[in-house]
């Protein structure tokens, strides 16, 4: 069988997506684990010097930079096509992949996070029940 890879972007017009990548896992407090939508993860800042970036999640501050990807990545969406008489997905429904974006850069954070001792850091916006705290990968 064949799965067609389609693209309605047109050459050079593929919307560019972004990636923020951390070595570690962001965990939400149990109270909000099931309702993550719209909650803030952290604040991303670009410093003035040499384009360094900081990402502050809870009381951890990460330092990183914007890095071009060695090879670009495409964002594909799997689409199940229903036949004319099918009302539900079945084994015989055909699948297509649609290109919906391209990624050429990521903001990569790979240094060990710095724990912020003081809770009132100028770049961190205090919010009610700040939901995230960072658990770094060892």
């Amino acid at each position, binding site marked *: *069988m*064949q*799965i*067609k*890879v*389609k*693209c309605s*972007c*047109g*050459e050079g017009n*593929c*919307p*560019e*997506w*972004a*990636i*923020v*990548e*951390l*070595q*570690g*896992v*962001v965990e939400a407090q149990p109270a909000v684990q099931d309702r*993550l*939508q*719209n*909650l*803030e*993860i*952290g*604040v*991303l*800042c*670009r*410093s*003035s010097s040499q*384009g360094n*970036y900081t*990402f502050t999640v809870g009381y951890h501050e990460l330092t990183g930079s914007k890095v071009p*990807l060695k*090879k*670009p*990545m*495409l*964002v*594909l*969406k*799997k*689409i199940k096509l229903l036949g004319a008489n099918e009302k539900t997905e079945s084994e015989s429904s055909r699948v297509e*992949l649609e*290109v919906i*974006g*391209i*990624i050429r*850069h*990521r*903001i990569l954070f790979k240094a060990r996070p710095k724990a912020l001792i003081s809770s009132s850091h100028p*770049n961190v*916006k205090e919010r009610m029940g700040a939901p995230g705290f960072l658990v770094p*990968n060892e």
Partner: protein
Amino acid sequence: MEQPLFCHRRGAEAVLTLQPNTSISIAYHPRFGPHDDLILLELDEKLIPDILHERVTLRGQPDEDAVLCTQLKTYAVKFVGTSNSVFLIPPSDQSVSHEKPLDCDEKDHDKMVIASVIKVAPGSMELIEVAPRLDKLKLLLSENPYGADEVIEVEDLEGMEKINTGLYRWDDLIERVQASDEELRSGLRALSAVEIDGYWRIVDEKYMDGILNMLFHNLILNDWSYNALNEDEVVGVLELDGYPRKVACHCLQVYASKVDGVASGSCLWKLDEKRVCLHFARGILRGGKKKMESFMEEWIRKVPEGMQVNFNMLEGEVLIEKLGIESWVYAFSVSSLPSTPADRFSILFRERQKWEWKDLHPYIRDLSVPGLSSDGLLLKYTRRTQPTLDAEPVFSAR
């Protein structure tokens, strides 16, 4: 009044064009979730135009590993996981901006720009160039070779539907064979397949024997020249004998080559001595192995007058076995062997434990693995020994 910048953008562009000394909030998208239907595919820049112009497909049966095919090449698709948290941020959704742009001051935290994460990607797909998987093509086309039965069937079953088992059109082959269009065409050429009534067929060997015999019979009868066969005459005569035109033309294409630079009129063809002699040799050995002397005698006798046999014509097609003082020759054709290196070497070493280079070479020179040279192949799949410096190196299984 200063132009408001980056107010309430909620997307990738806010992240990618973040100015020095500014900040944005990264939050979970209102529709954040697993989104298993979103896949990341890493690929070389040079493949991007093919994908954007919709010239790429994934091919394979549900029980096979998927491959991605451009028009020319085939790539295996592998998922590579990551233990990092990869936050995927889409561009802002222009259709969903309910708020009017507000005047916004960078220091005004209540109106900080938010970029939203739609998904945390578990990893991405990578492509590895691979050789096309053409063994299946031979298997499929061998289900129903075109032969004498076929022709009789058509004549006897007038008005009845021909039973279409083991018959494949181009579109059927594309669905089943994991190869690019170009590689599939090349594979069909390598099998000397012919398209008849829209179906791709391999011609049965015995049937081909019959056609060739008829051709040679007429060649002698009409005093035709091997080097200047007139296409219309040849095909005409074969058609009169009951061979379909398509098959007659195919016969010329397999056993002869077109003569260039002929003035207008019918095409001229020149018989390929090697291909013709090989055909007769294979016919002789179809019944089993033969003593070298008997084989050579029969071969010289059967080959059309004027053609010279040469044992070198049979490299990659026959093997010699020494039993006592006698040499026996038997058919062992490279075209009957699998095309994947591991399987190929496995069968070769099962046939014979040790091989000298001159015998081995014809049986592996058609192997192609992207990224692996022929020396690399030998290194990977064989053990090379050389008893003395003067002796021929010998290859055996690893």
